[in-house]
């Protein structure tokens, strides 16, 4: 009955987020294209909430592990957009560190899912 509801919420949310005012970026309101980048931040945060929904409601553990992996990859994109929009270059360092940590944790969780020990 409610199969259409998820897609409707997503599309209405994207259209509403494009219409509303962008995030003001507390430090540098004078940079070029800062309104466009604020709206991209809204959209990527919406996608992160979709991943959180799958983590909350995944029927099996494998669903949750997939969603955690995807969330980690998407946070790298968030850090990259923050690098442009605030002009501070250390956000991309957070992205690289998050990529390393996310890869290691995904491998460890999949080994745990497989049911073997970690030192095999």
């Amino acid at each position, binding site marked *: 009955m409610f199969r259409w509801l998820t897609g409707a919420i997503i599309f209405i949310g994207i259209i509403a987020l494009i219409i509303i005012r962008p995030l003001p970026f507390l430090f540098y309101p004078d940079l070029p294209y800062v309104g466009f980048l604020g709206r991209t931040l809204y959209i990527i945060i919406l996608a992160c909430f979709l991943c959180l929904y799958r983590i909350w409601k995944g029927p099996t553990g494998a669903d949750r592990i*997939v969603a955690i*992996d*995807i969330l980690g990859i998407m946070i790298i994109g968030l850090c*990259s957009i923050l690098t442009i929009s605030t002009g501070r270059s250390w956000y991309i360092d957070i992205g*690289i560190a998050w990529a390393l940590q996310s890869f290691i944790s995904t491998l460890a969780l999949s080994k745990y899912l497989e049911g073997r020990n970690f030192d095999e």
Partner: protein
Amino acid sequence: MSNIIGLIFITVGLAFDVFGCIGLVRLPDVYNRLQAATKCVTLGTCSILFGTFLIVGFTAAGMKALLCIIFLILTSPVAAHAIARGAHRAGVKLWDGSVVDKYAEDKEGEA
């Protein structure tokens, strides 16, 4: 000019990210979700990072963005393969409408 090309790359990457996440929510099975989400989100994030490199230029942050692209392309298929193999070995059922399961046939052939 390179700013505008970078913004186009960022927009395309965002579209790939959002469609990958819609696939993660909407598809019926672990393997289908993995198939939809991992490829879309990896390509989308690599596109966002390349747009960052085009906007920032040949600075330290741009070089780190290129390094992050290489690292993502190397490691993301490995992680997806590990998740799929672990889920299949843990006994997660396939969707009812699935047509073929080659990995189970291979395991039966070995045993």
